[in-house]
């Protein structure tokens, strides 16, 4: 973290500040989405932006996710730098053609002649009692697609720095925010800063086991690490921060150092982010691992509404703690 003065901001404030700064810096940056203007989105993440930048740059759209995502693609090709707001990550289903068949491929298909500098901001994360269509974490899909970059910030500091980089990037970038983290507070420098995409962050150093965690799971991993410390187990928490580009080196080095790894992600495990991370580490640290890489992710069920059911679908600090402990101290 840079040395300038910092304040405590919430995750939502950090996102808003990143947008406001980039909009001041570059008049081509605009926002398109549902209820983004006066309402500032249901999570109030964008409050105040329309007041500063006007409704020409903070544009309320009809409920047409495919349509306005496509508008974002075309606008990005022709001189704007749109930030497209998809209210819930579950609605990216409606944008897959525009993101995958268009945005992701245009630069390549045109032999490098057109560029699509756009950002899609959307959410992930369960446990809000929002049921199966408002609780998914579908970032694995976009991570699978060449031409897209995928960002998963886990702190206010990372959110701000990564979002600014994403907006300045010349490619389509998908930025996933955990709904449950919007109120999380953390230090954010007052000065301008950015964080490069593709650089993992060791959120906590440790020796006995590596917890590779993304987005919402970083906080879970950090709390599990606290619990582990009380049992004299030293856990390293590594946050890739972007699933693409992916900082394979940092992940593998940590795995080699600790020789035990749990990978944690709130998406589904199967054919998901934990699969890639586990496969990568199992290959890259093959000769150093003392135990198989363990994957912890959303249970393979649609997210149920009923609270006691929903609560067991997602890894918690307790389940991570127990898993890590039994890897380190097999009974």
């Amino acid at each position, binding site marked *: 973290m840079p040395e300038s003065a910092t304040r405590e901001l919430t995750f939502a404030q950090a996102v808003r500040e990143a947008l406001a700064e980039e909009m001041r810096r570059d008049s081509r940056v605009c926002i398109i989405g*549902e*209820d983004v203007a*006066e*309402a500032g989105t*249901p999570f109030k993440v964008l409050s105040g932006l329309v007041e500063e930048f006007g409704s020409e740059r903070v544009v*309320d*759209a*009809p*409920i*047409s996710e*495919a*349509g306005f995502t496509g508008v974002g693609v075309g606008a990005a090709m022709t001189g704007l730098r749109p930030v497209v707001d998809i209210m819930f990550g*579950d*609605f990216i289903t*409606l944008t897959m053609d525009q993101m995958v068949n268009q945005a992701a491929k245009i630069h390549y298909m045109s032999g490098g002649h057109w560029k699509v500098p756009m950002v899609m901001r959307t959410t992930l994360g369960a446990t*809000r*009692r*929002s*049921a*199966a*269509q*408002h609780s998914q974490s579908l970032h694995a899909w976009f991570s699978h697609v060449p031409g897209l970059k995928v960002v998963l910030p886990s702190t206010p500091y990372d959110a701000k720095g990564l979002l600014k980089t994403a907006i300045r990037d010349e490619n389509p970038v998908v930025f996933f925010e955990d709904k449950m983290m919007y109120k999380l507070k953390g230090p954010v420098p007052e000065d301008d800063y950015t964080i490069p995409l593709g650089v993992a962050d060791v959120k906590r150093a440790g020796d006995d086991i590596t917890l590779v965690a993304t987005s919402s799971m970083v906080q879970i991993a950090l709390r599990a690490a606290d619990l582990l410390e009380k049992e004299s187990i030293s856990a390293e928490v590594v946050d890739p921060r972007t699933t693409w580009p992916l900082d394979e080196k940092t992940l593998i080095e940590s795995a080699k150092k600790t020789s035990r790894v749990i990978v944690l992600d709130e998406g589904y495990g199967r054919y998901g982010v934990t699969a890639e991370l586990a496969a990568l580490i199992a290959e890259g640290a093959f000769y150093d691992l003392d135990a198989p890489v363990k994957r912890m992710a959303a*249970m*393979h*069920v*649609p997210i*149920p*509404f*009923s*609270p*006691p*059911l929903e609560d*067991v*679908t997602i890894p918690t600090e307790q389940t991570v703690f127990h898993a890590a402990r039994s890897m380190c101290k097999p009974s």
Partner: protein
Amino acid sequence: MTMAAPQFEAGADTAVQRDKWIHMYRQMVSIRLFEEQVNELYTRALMPGLAHLYSGEEAVAVGICEALRIDDYITSTHRGHGHCLAKGASPDRMFAELLGKEAGYCRGKGGSMHIADPATGNLGANAIVGGSVGIATGAAFAAKKLATDRVAVCFFGEGALGQGSLYEVMNLAQLWKLPVIYVCENNLYNEYTHYTETTAGDVLSRATAFGIEAASVDGQDVRAVYGIASRFVERARRGEGPGFLQCNTYRYTGHHVGDINREYYRSKTEEQLWKTERDPLKVLSEWLLAQGLAGAPALKEIQDQIRARMEAAVKFAIESPYPSVDEVEKHVYA
């Protein structure tokens, strides 16, 4: 085309007719009082998550569903409690669902936005705006192929006019002459945005462009809704194809139970005007009184009965158990 409320059907039995209107009154009161309890549950922090109340729009669901048979299909929305009750669901299992209890229609797995019930032809509420237009059209497709003479009604808010899939399925429905009726509940707002800011051109033309018969109706007048719905339903049942009905209505409260400060997007005066001038319960009860079909005490008694029923249903739901945790992995596959 805007339809006026039908008067008594000439030569029909007056007592039968009266019972019909009184039944509709009961249904509307049920919805209103159900939603009052939902709000209460939210305020008392007894309900997990949020809910989108149907208060103010009762005449739409009731007017439409009374024109349907129990084995006809509906698809519903995030604002679905009214449709569900109007199609015949029981409040106790609905409250149980809202609280995530095993006794709920979906064993607690769906919650407010996903109540579904094969017994009343409810294909399910849907938390994706426009998400059910294909399902309703598909139910009509099956009804036609299986020659069951069932009809499907697709409820959606005017916000769903933004979703392209609506136009895709209207085209299919008209090409294939499917028995489906698209019911657009125009309550003026998509969440926090007035619909005129999201909706270019003319609503009915969006259906007539596909050759679909379309009409607008006063959604606060259950008799008007029922009248035009019956016409569309019978037409569809006869195999004459789909219909599109815009019901002009208003939601009394927030987009969801937590949407308390609404003045940045709509005025209190506007809300007040709808409540006092266009209330669907008032519109019907005044007519019933004026026609001498019911007295004030009888209507009061209906309200009391229903209030008691709702309170009992809430109690049932609160006291019901949650599903056991191993339910979580059941029903992923049939």
